[in-house]
């Protein structure tokens, strides 16, 4: 393999060659704005994660107690199979441990980080395991999803009940078709294209329902995760 010019062999200096072109500035400017960042100390799990990031296993065990009911609950909701869900939840926690020192508070709370990771891992599991067609077939008869799973271990029952009531109220503010599309995507683990097939509506319609539904949910729930 021969480069066609001598110039091509020179390693590209992204730092010097490209600074003039505004790229590095662009990337820097792309960080979440300070206004968007949670206030320091606003995230009660931030301290636990910071200690875990320094190798403190006891702190990580505490973090596990706070997050496990949510992580396992989300994974179970998407994956359905309890033993597979247990495997996926374990992967999520080991990943949280490994990456603890790299957590970036400007990109959301610890809970949001863990929820994102749990959902992504669960999705990876179901999408790698089955063809989308199989899942669509299985889901057609199971479109209605419940919201009344049982409570966890660390937070008080009252806290959990309040959380659930608040989320249920917020979900109730979505139109039925918005809620259906959001839930099929989030809990059903479907892409919006699959949701369109499931509901037999246009992809653009599903995209709009998902977007409008998430905007409503965001407005109802505020930005405190």
């Amino acid at each position, binding site marked *: 393999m021969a480069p066609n010019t001598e110039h*091509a062999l020179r390693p590209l200096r992204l730092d010097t060659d490209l600074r003039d072109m505004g790229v590095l500035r662009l*990337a820097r400017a792309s960080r979440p704005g300070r206004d968007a960042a949670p206030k320091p100390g606003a995230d009660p799990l931030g301290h636990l994660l910071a200690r875990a990031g320094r190798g403190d296993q006891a702190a990580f065990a505490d973090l596990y107690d706070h997050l496990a009911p949510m992580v396992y609950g989300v994974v179970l909701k998407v994956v359905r199979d309890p033993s597979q869900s247990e495997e996926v939840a*374990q992967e999520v926690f080991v990943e949280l441990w490994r*990456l603890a020192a790299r957590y970036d508070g400007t990109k959301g709370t610890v809970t949001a980080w863990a929820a994102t990771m749990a*959902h992504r891992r669960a999705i990876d599991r179901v999408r790698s395991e089955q063809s989308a067609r199989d899942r669509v077939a299985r889901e057609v008869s199971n479109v209605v999803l419940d919201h009344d799973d049982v409570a966890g271990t660390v937070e008080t029952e009252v806290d959990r009940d309040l959380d659930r009531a608040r*989320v249920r109220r917020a979900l109730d503010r979505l139109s039925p078709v918005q809620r259906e599309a959001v839930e099929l995507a989030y809990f059903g683990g479907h892409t*919006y294209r699959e949701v369109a097939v499931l509901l037999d509506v246009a992809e653009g319609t599903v995209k709009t329902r998902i977007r409008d539904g998430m905007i409503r949910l965001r407005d109802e*729930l505020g930005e405190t995760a």
Partner: protein
Amino acid sequence: MSSDIDIHHLGAAYTLDALDERERMAFEAHYPSCDVCRADVLAFRAALAQVASAQTTPPPRALKAAVMAEVARTRQLSPLLPDRVSDLAERRRRRQRTIGGFLAAAAAVVLVLGAAVVLGRGGEPAYATALAQVLDAPDGTVLTLEPSDAMGAGASVKVAWSAQEGMAVVIADGLPATPTGMAYELWFIGSGDPEPMGMLERVDAGELHAVLDIDGDPTAWGVTVEPDGGSPAPTGDILFLGAA
């Protein structure tokens, strides 16, 4: 592939993990530099965290013990770079084994690198336009490079390219800081020795988008850490590797 008009509307589906791989990649290329979409992603994730927090199920009792046992034997990633192996020969041997494995599986196709590099600017950045062009090409290919164990899943490097369009788009995110005097270097791996494609300087958010002119089809891509200014051949561990 959505049109440019649509891309600002994908944040909701993205945070629900409801985009297909191409759209996800396009959106991940787009949103960090778009104020509106970045705010959407943060806010939608915050809302979903609450939905998730209302979705609790008591985990199996055995899970905690299993997690903590795994934690006890799992090395954490440094906030900075993974430790470098001090023995150069060992490093080189392991690297050649890794590269050899990919080469055995990949057809040897000659790639001649063009000299020009174009990177995006603000507004609708050039890389997003280039990415759309690459992904819309009939031979457009997306590859997520496999991170080595030392990197972990938090860091990602994706390459999209089209030989027909003569273009490759590199999107890196979550890369940890390199030690002073060191930087990430991107490699094209073909039939011969790895060819340097350029240095990926750590930026604040660990994000970098690069558009490279290519001439030909690659067989594999790799990323190492090298002294500033780059090495003519890789000397550091392969941190990301993907066979085309």
